[in-house]
């Protein structure tokens, strides 16, 4: 039973969903924002420490499903030490990948996030992947809250 969900609940997603390594506030964080999915009650708070035009470190606190937590953890890993402009582009690419399953112009950072692309087979779960990214962009834009709606 459940063999057909192993694409979404891959070992990589499950590891990040159950034992995230970035589920903490980075020391000296200078921006933070919440992301809410009002339909399901998932909530993510993302914290970033910036260094000039780059995100030096990102972390999160969340209550949510395994997919949301895995996405938040992989996101924090992917954006650490990345230029903010690149992070904005990456957010769009992740959203597109989550919707379509395709990884266009797939570079090393996106390949790392690629396990999340399986969510495209589960349309009602796409927001689980994108919610942490909404919160991250809100933090970088100086906003306090965002929503997946």
């Amino acid at each position, binding site marked *: 039973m*459940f063999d057909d969900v192993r694409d979404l609940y891959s070992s990589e997603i499950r590891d990040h969903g159950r034992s995230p390594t970035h589920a903490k506030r980075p020391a000296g964080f200078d921006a933070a924002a919440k992301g809410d999915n009002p339909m399901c009650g998932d909530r993510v708070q993302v914290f970033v420490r910036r260094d000039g035009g780059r995100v030096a470190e990102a972390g999160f606190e969340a209550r*949510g*499903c395994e997919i949301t937590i895995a996405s938040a953890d992989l996101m924090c890993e992917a954006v650490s030490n990345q230029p903010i402009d690149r992070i904005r582009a990456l957010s769009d690419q992740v959203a597109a990948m989550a919707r379509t399953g395709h990884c266009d112009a797939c570079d090393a950072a996106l390949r790392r996030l690629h396990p999340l692309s399986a969510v495209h087979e*589960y349309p009602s*779960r796409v927001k689980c992947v994108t919610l942490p990214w909404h919160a991250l962009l809100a933090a970088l834009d100086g906003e306090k809250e965002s929503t997946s709606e």
Partner: protein
Amino acid sequence: MNMMTKNLVESGFDVQRIRDDFPILSQQIRGKPLVFLDSAASAQKPRPVIDAMVNAMETQYANVHRGLHWMSERTTDAYEGTRDAVARLINAPSRDEIVFTKNTTEAINLVAYSYGRGIMRPGQAVVISEMEHHANLVPWQMLRDACGIELRVAPVTDAGELDMVGLEALLVDRKVGLVAITHMSNVLGTVVPAVRVAALAHEYGAKVLFDGSQAVVHRAVDVQAIDADFYVFTGHKLYGPTGIGVLWARRELLEAMPPFMGGGDMIGTVTFERSTWAEVPHKFEAGTPAIIEAIGLKAAIEYVEAIGFDAITAHEGRLTDHALARLSAIPGLRVLGAAQDRGGVFSFTMQGAHAHDIATLLDRQGIAVRAGNHCAEPLSRRLGVDSSARASTGIYTTEAEIDVLADTLLRVREFFT
């Protein structure tokens, strides 16, 4: 045939025959039989409802209340016939007290606007409970913010029952103009003691509104026996179509209340200087109504009446006992609420598994449940849960489907631990 099925067949309730009336239930989802346990969100539609709507469009459709021709007269008769069916369903004293709305939400907004703004005065209060659907919460917040009417929240006990002592404490200063309470919780399945709530509200000079969205599906409702002032429900949970809901209110209240929306059909005469209103209930039905949907609702009401609420309630009672026994035997699973009087709605959490992940795994086995806050976010907070999964039954639900749910949940638990 087990004893339960035998008893139900003998009492005229043959669940397999009922299932045959619902074309959608023979569908397979990803190669597995559909186990539809999301009827509290919206119920499936039996063939007589589908046929009534199609037949109306194919043979006798025109606008209502305005045509001097055969088609319009027939359509008006069919549309107005639904008012009689609704009055019979809830034992309203008069068909003229039945107002059609889009759904429960619109019916409550109508009351919040027309009664709240038109009749209530600043300084008065509305009482709701901790287990309200957002539809019976947000309109009252909007009234509070617009008109200086206080909003009070009656507590529920840890068992998920309305705290009657807590409710009375909110009423004693006699400032409450309206108590607006669910008749059956869409999260906990709790059936509220409506007769006692109405008596208590009246004792302190308040009117009482019941949100019957869930209750009207599962129990025989008698607004006169309850001594209600307002009763609202929606068609699509009662095996009818979307887009049609009902407000029942006492005639004197409807007559005193100003209209909700203005437009055609709700007027007496119109000049550029002023307009006069139509008699109730038409005063509250502006514009072309949901004609086909009303015709579908009548077929739905006739369908459940033909089965009979004694049989429906007995079937659901057995399903509820079975579901609670099976679910509570699953390690790490917590069923929310433990009301003495409850219907076929079971919200639950599972240790180590988030409700969304549970719902996705169940879906892959053809089992449809809901996950999240169920449009009752404050109740989730009160119960100390972020979200929960919810299985809910209908007249077509079988014990075997409950077993499929419980057996699959055991496997879900293995998957996540």
